[in-house]
Every structure is written in structure tokens, then in C-alpha cells.
């Protein structure tokens, strides 16, 4: 069972939900929690444990200038403008490279090879006997964290129950995270911003073909517009978490509110049971 927590709008409570949800259900199930928000990973802050670190690399072309005759074919082919061929020099703009390997194929002189370039790290931590946290971290200054998302997902693939915390937005990192999941929880808040971005996120998830449901966070009780959108689009509202200054403060300090409010343990256990039943008992 692979469940993604996504949102569209940032700061609606994805990490709050995935941390508390995973913590509670790890009470009697093995859970792997995966932080796919590699630009700004935050889950490790709640568990104060990074674990074993390993690096993530991407293959980047290097030019052997003894073999290169500066024909320019690599630069012409590269769709990303990552290679500029001058009269007697080839410049590779590493940040623009997508590591597709095309330049190696078009080079008539076999002058291009690839070397690994470190773009980030992953942390693999056993938080307690039932809960494992895998975090992807993009290095500051790197533009593209997709390879890191792929790596952390691969690492968790064989586990029976995985919760993925997505980055905000609706672009490539979100698509990479949602792909292959059994279910997607869309976390929103009852503001025009939250609703606007929920609509976009729901559209993406639908396009990818993953069933989804909605959690309204910081609900102030007047959620009519969100409820109406969900009704019209056959999106079930799975849970509402009310706005509460104390929950906000606990969260802001980097603690889990479900520890302070044991009532929530049943809510999160029920949420998992419900999602599993929606997915046809796919355990």
C-alpha cells in the first residue's frame, strides 16, 4: 500500500499529517515514511534522527578535448542548451543538463563520457522498531531533484506500507512522487488559495490515474466552498483537523500533536483502515 500526501498549495499541513499519521499507524504496523519534498525536507525535524547518509549523483558529460574536433553536434542536439561548443573549447553547463545521454550518442569521435556529479543526499533512519524514515535532500544551488525522488522511492519500493510526503505545487516533483501510488491524500485549507490549488492538484492526480481524497486542515468550520468542490468532483473528505493554536504551537516546536492529543490516534488508525478499504483491501 503506497499513500502519497500532496497539496498543491504549500504549508497546508502535508508534513504535519504525514508525520502524525505515520507515527500513529506505526503503533501496530511496519511503516516506511518517505520525505519526497527534497527541496525543503522537514520530516526529520519531527523525529530528530537522520540516520545513515549516502550521496545521490547524476551522470554529467565530460569532453575529452584530445578526441574532440569541435564539430558542434553535441551542442546542436542538446535540447536543454547545456552544451556550448566554441572554436577550441566545449562548455558543459551542468545545471541545465538532464543527464539524457544524447550527447554521447551523437558524438562522432567518441569524445564524451559521463562522470557522476553529486546533487544531494539521502538519509535512512530507523526511528523505532516499526517506523523507518527515508529523507531525500537536494543540495542548495541544484535545480533538479527528480533523481533524488526516484532514489528514495526505489529504496522503499518493496515495503508493504509506505507514506510519501510530496513537495507542494503541481509540477514535475509532484508528478514523480504521485506516480505509482495506490492512493493520494490531498491536504487543503479553507481559503480561496487553498481551494484554487486543491483544484489544480486534484486535476494532476486524476491525470496520473491515482484515486484521491481530501483532508481539510486548520478548518474553521466554514468549509462550504471546499465541500462543494469535493462533492461535485467525487472527492471524499476523509478528515477535518480544526484550527487550534495549541496544535499550531506543538507543530511549530517540531513535535507531534498526536502524542499530546491521544484522541487523534483513533482518527488516524481509522483513516488508514478507510483508505485500505477504498483501495479494495490492497494490503
Amino acid at each position, binding site marked *: 500500500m503506497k499513500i502519497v500526501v500532496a497539496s*498543491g*498549495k*504549500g*504549508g*497546508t499541513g502535508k*508534513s504535519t499529517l504525514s508525520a502524525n499519521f505515520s507515527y500513529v499507524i506505526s503503533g501496530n504496523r511496519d511503516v516506511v515514511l518517505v520525505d519526497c519534498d527534497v*527541496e*525543503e525536507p*522537514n520530516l526529520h*525535524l519531527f523525529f530528530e534522527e537522520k540516520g545513515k547518509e549516502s550521496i545521490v549523483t547524476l551522470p554529467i558529460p565530460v569532453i575529452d578535448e584530445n578526441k574532440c574536433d569541435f564539430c558542434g553536434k553535441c551542442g546542436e*542536439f542538446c*535540447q*536543454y542548451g547545456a552544451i556550448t561548443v566554441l572554436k577550441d573549447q566545449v562548455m558543459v553547463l551542468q*545545471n541545465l543538463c*538532464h*543527464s*539524457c*545521454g*544524447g550527447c554521447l*550518442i*551523437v558524438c562522432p569521435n567518441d569524445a564524451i563520457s559521463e562522470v557522476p556529479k553529486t546533487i544531494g543526499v539521502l538519509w535512512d533512519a530507523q526511528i523505532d522498531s516499526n517506523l523507518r524514515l527515508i529523507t531525500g535532500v*537536494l543540495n*542548495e*544551488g*541544484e*535545480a*533538479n*531533484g527528480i533523481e533524488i525522488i526516484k532514489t528514495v522511492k526505489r529504496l522503499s519500493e518493496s515495503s508493504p506500507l509506505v507514506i510519501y510526503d510530496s*513537495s*507542494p*505545487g*503541481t*509540477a*514535475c*516533483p509532484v*508528478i514523480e512522487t504521485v*506516480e505509482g501510488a495506490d492512493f493520494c491524500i490531498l491536504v487543503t*485549507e479553507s*481559503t*480561496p*488559495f487553498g481551494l*484554487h*490549488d486543491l483544484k*489544480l*492538484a486534484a*486535476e*494532476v492526480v486524476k*491525470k*496520473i490515474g491515482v484515486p484521491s481524497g481530501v483532508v481539510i486542515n486548520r478548518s*474553521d468550520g466554514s468549509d462550504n466552498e471546499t465541500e462543494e468542490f469535493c462533492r461535485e468532483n467525487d472527492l471524499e473528505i476523509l478528515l477535518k483537523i480544526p484550527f487550534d*493554536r495549541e496544535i*499550531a*504551537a506543538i*507543530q*511549530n*516546536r*517540531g513535535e507531534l500533536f498526536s502524542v499530546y492529543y491521544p484522541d487523534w490516534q483513533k482518527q488516524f488508525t481509522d483513516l488508514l483502515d478507510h483508505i485500505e478499504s477504498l483501495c479494495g483491501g490492497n494490503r
Partner: protein
Amino acid sequence: MKKLAVISGKGGTGKTMVAGALASLAECSIAFADCDVDAANLELLLNPTVELTKPYYGLKVAEIDQDACTLCGLCEELCRFDAITFEDGRFSVNPIKCEGCAVCTLLCPSDAVVMKTRINGEIYYSKTSFGPFAHARLEPGSGTTGLLVTEVKKLIYEKAGDKELLLIDGPPGIGCPLIATVTGVDAVLIVTEPSISGLHDLKRVVTVCNKFGVDIFVVINKFDLEETVSLKIEDYCQEAGISLAGKIPFDKKVIEAIKNREPVVSQKCPSADAIKEIWIFLKKEFNLL
């Protein structure tokens, strides 16, 4: 034109709320751009009238001509993005996964793969009661957000380059959309919140901004929700030599204003007073008026 981007690192700290409020406070000649293209919200506050709509073509996407395909499978083998799959006796391209690299076209023995242009979104130039506004809509599920951000900025430079100030509502995170946003601006206003996540993400986005040599100002939004963390953020800013532009208290009027789709400074409340102070601070920094 002075260029200021409102960014945050962590999402949902209040970038758009602050940008919308500053928009309505500015007495100087001002233009706006929403560079959070995959979850654009500033239009909800500025109420724009669209004057010009341009299609946004991202990178091309591969397509396989089924009649010409000999089913050799070379394209699938070469694709590093797992975008080509074999199903029901045919190879096809998943446009969501295709990154447009065109490697699949290189060795196809029957020239069955072609790169097709695809509309990945729309770019708009609009009028608002505060000034001209460039914004965009990314087709949900499209990539190349960085490229679209660059296009939005290009459009506003072209149309409103004579204004005194360009205020950009930026994206969260530190990846390509953020890098495209920060490139070429004079300063960033980082809106953070008093949570350990907010502080952690603030430090990461500051590291990225330092590589661009832009001026950095910080605003702590909802600072009184956890003052211990708020103080840690102030300490960090002081150590890092970053100016604190202001602190905004938690205020229920903010949500109320957003629900009414109006800038919060149109109401009389503590958060509006704080943002007015921030605008005075920024005006001085930028020598406006």
C-alpha cells in the same frame, strides 16, 4: 526598475498575502509578476483584467508513429526517464514522463519517433487597479516550470520595464522555479514563520540566494504563534547579517481578508499595521519616493 521577489523556502508562510498587501500600499509606479506558476494565487487578490494571452510551449514531447514503428524497442532501451513503455503490442510515450530530450529519435531505424510541440500552459499580461501584472497558468502535470518563470519575467520586463518597482510573488522551495525567479532580481523578501520547519527552510533558501548575490530581507509572519522559535529566527538573521524587515502578528483578520479576496491592509488590524511598517522599511532600502 528595482526588482524585489517575495519568496519563502517553506510553502504557505504567507508570501502571496504579503505581496498582495504591499501591492496595495505602494505609492510608486509598480508592476507585478506571479512566478509561482504551478500554484499561482496572486491573481485572486489583484483581480486582473487579462489584456493579452500567449500560449506557453515547453519542451517538445516524443510521439511514436505506430505505422512506421518496427517494434525494435531501441527507444525504450535508450530512454532514461522511463517514458516509453510497451503495452498491448505497441510502444508508446507517456507525455507526463517525457522530458523532451529527443534521444529516442536518434537511433530509431524507421524514423518512427517525432518530437511534437505541445502547449504546456498560458502566459497572461493583465491590468489591475494597482499596476500591470504578468502571470501564467501551467498545464497541471507539465514540467519545465523554470522556463515558464523566465517567460513571465521576460513579459513584464518588456511591457512594464519603465516602472520604478517590480514586485514578484515567488515559488516555495529551492529548485528550478526558485532559481529562475531569483536570477536577475535586486533583492528578496523571505517570508518565514516561527516553526522549526520554517527556520530550517529559511536557512536553505538563504544559502541559495547568497549564490546570486542579492540583498536579503526577512519577515516573520505569525511571529507570536511560537515566540521561542521566532527569537531563534531573529538570532539567526543577526548572525547571518540579514536585515529583519518586520514581524507580523497572528491575526484572524488575515484569513478573513483572503476569504473576501482583498489585501489585508484594507482593514484596520494589527497585521495591517505591521505590513505598513514593512513597506516603509522597504521604501527606504530601495530609495523609493
